[in-house]
């Protein structure tokens, strides 16, 4: 790929491979992220999301493949890349023994935010985090949600065009998580390209596009809509009943059923044709003395999609092995 082809996309990953010894953490991953896009990275723990992000930041060197950020080849010139990015690591990386203000001033200095601009930028970060009036509190005394927003504020002080956020919502309670995503949207609306990783599957809905990573491989990528409708490879039914266990077993044998799994205290059934199954399944189950209290078609959630995709991927791997 030449430089001009990568000009539009802020992030370009081409066949990235990262090995640690004999362990392959990232296995031929390719994707692009455009200007102002929010790209979500989803996947179970240990899937390789952090490794990919760290490679994009120049913290790890690719074993194979190439990576461009803001048009710069990261492996060749990591230092130049760092001027254009903001990074929030999994541990938030704030200085816990420093105050809110001191942390901001520190990062302001590190990123050489122009002195004239710094007070305004600091104010912006403090307001964004909702920490007005608490500038002098030590970070160690702040609750998770506050720290998270402050860390984001520190990462954007220098107005980077690209943001890498590695599981910023881990261990933070739901309202704070929502608030955080609102902030991400505000930033993206301003033209910032954001690459976020998370292990909360539902957060994929907040992204422009989401990439599903499992065991180092990219198994699906697309907008939430695309993923819901094309990736699933079937239509989804919701089934509620008393005897979950036997019903699940019976469904596995049923015709037209691709897969079924428990979701909460109901069963999600993946079928070839929803209309046909809605007609045929009740009778099928009746034959086995199972009576569902509810059976209807539902829109698949991304969680459905991802669970299904990962399961399928695991099957594929064990067959290949």
């Amino acid at each position, binding site marked *: 790929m030449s430089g001009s082809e990568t000009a539009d996309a802020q992030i370009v990953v081409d066949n990235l491979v990262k090995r*640690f010894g004999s362990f392959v953490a990232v296995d031929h991953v390719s994707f692009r992220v455009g200007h102002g896009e929010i790209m979500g990275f989803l996947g179970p723990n240990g899937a390789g999301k952090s490794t990919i992000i*760290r490679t994009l*930041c*120049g*913290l*790890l*060197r690719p074993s194979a493949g190439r990576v461009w950020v803001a048009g710069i080849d990261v492996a060749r010139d*990591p*230092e130049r890349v*760092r*001027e254009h*990015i903001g*990074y*929030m*690591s*999994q*541990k*938030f*990386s*704030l*200085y*816990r*023994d*420093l105050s809110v203000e*001191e942390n901001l*001033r*520190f*990062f*302001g*200095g*590190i*990123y*050489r935010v122009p002195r004239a601009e710094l007070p305004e930028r600091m104010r912006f970060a403090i307001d964004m985090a909702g920490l007005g009036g608490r500038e002098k509190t030590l970070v160690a005394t702040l609750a998770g949600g506050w720290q998270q927003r402050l860390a984001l504020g520190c990462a954007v002080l220098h107005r980077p065009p690209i943001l890498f956020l590695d599981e910023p919502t881990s261990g933070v309670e739901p309202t704070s998580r929502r608030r955080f995503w609102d902030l991400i949207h505000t930033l993206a609306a301003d033209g910032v390209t954001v690459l976020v990783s998370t292990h909360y599957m539902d957060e994929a809905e907040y992204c422009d596009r989401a990439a599903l990573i499992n065991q180092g491989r990219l198994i699906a990528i697309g907008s939430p809509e695309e993923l819901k409708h094309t990736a699933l490879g079937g239509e989804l039914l919701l089934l509620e009943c008393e005897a979950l266990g036997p019903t699940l077993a019976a469904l596995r044998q049923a015709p037209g059923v691709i897969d079924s799994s428990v979701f909460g205290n109901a069963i999600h059934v993946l079928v070839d044709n929803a209309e046909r199954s809605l007609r045929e399944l009740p009778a099928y189950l009746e034959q086995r003395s199972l009576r569902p209290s509810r059976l209807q078609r539902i829109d698949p959630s991304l969680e459905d999609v991802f669970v299904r995709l990962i399961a399928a991927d695991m099957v594929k791997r064990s067959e290949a092995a």
Partner: protein
Amino acid sequence: MRWRRLKAIAVKEVLQTWRDPRSLMIALLLPFTQMFLFGYGVNLDLQHLPICTFDREGSQLSQDLLKHFQASLYFAIVHNVKAYPEIVAAIDRADCRVGIVIPPDFSERLNDSGTASVQAILDGTDDNTANIAFGYAASVVSGFSNDVQLSWLDRQGRTLQQVQPMTVQSRVWFNEDLVSRNFIIPGLVAVIMALVGAQLTSLTVAREWERGTMELLVSTPVQSSEVMFGKLIPYLMLGWLDAAFCLVIAVLWFEVPFRGTLLTLFLTTTLFLAVVLSIGYLLSVVIRSQVGASQIALVVTLLPTTLLSGYVFPIDQMPSFIQDVTYVIYSRYYVTIIKAIFLKGAGISELLMPILFLVVYAVAVVALAARAFRKRLD
């Protein structure tokens, strides 16, 4: 290198150190306790060695000999025993270092055969003092012997007009009172600087890796040289503070003479601190665990500095292969420098050689540390 980033790091480091009781304890309490512990606990002056005497004759002559021992500044008679086992027990218990036994036929043998001998029993477990004590005892007895000879001749009517054939006039330079404290304490400053310096910096990088803040820092445009100098500068200032601290205690409390100039002390101490701080920093970079880094730092500074720097044990008395080893011990040069500044009033021109070695060391370690710091996780 950008001043702005360096300053940001230095400011952060100062704030963190100020708020870390452990670091403060190391920086402030340690010098204090070391100075007093060593200042009072260490006394190598081999004067007034406790000795026991067993005069089996009890004659005028034997008492005379004992008076000679009494008068010597090297000895202090603590016991006059009446039985042999007592003297052995006294040495066993370390009540005295030497036992002087005068045989019961002392005067008789001297008059009859012209020679008599006196027994010196030494506690051989502390051979260091034993050898020396024996030397002292020999001088005292020689002096007594000459007296005996002269007075005998005198009584024969053949005065030799000698009081003593020879006298030794000694002058001591630089540490006129021969107080061991005067040479131990300046060297102690070196030990303290080495210890404190390395301990403080050995934590700094490792701590950030352990807490995760280093990962973030490394993803920014900050350069490794900025990180290094930004982190070392506050500790350098702390080192200066400590050095001043030690200087004040040494001169005002322990009354160690200070004959050099503050400027020379300042410059050479800065140089030494640069070496020591860089060593701690290097360890912190290479060993990404706080506990590990500080332990290795302790081993690398304390042991060589106390044993091989010439601080207490003179280098020129060591076996030659060890003397060669000491050329690599950085604190050796600073100990030489600081003693010379305190006791001899030496200036930069007299200290060119050790200063040069320290400069080489400083450059080498700083370069190593800068190279070792990688802005990567793998």
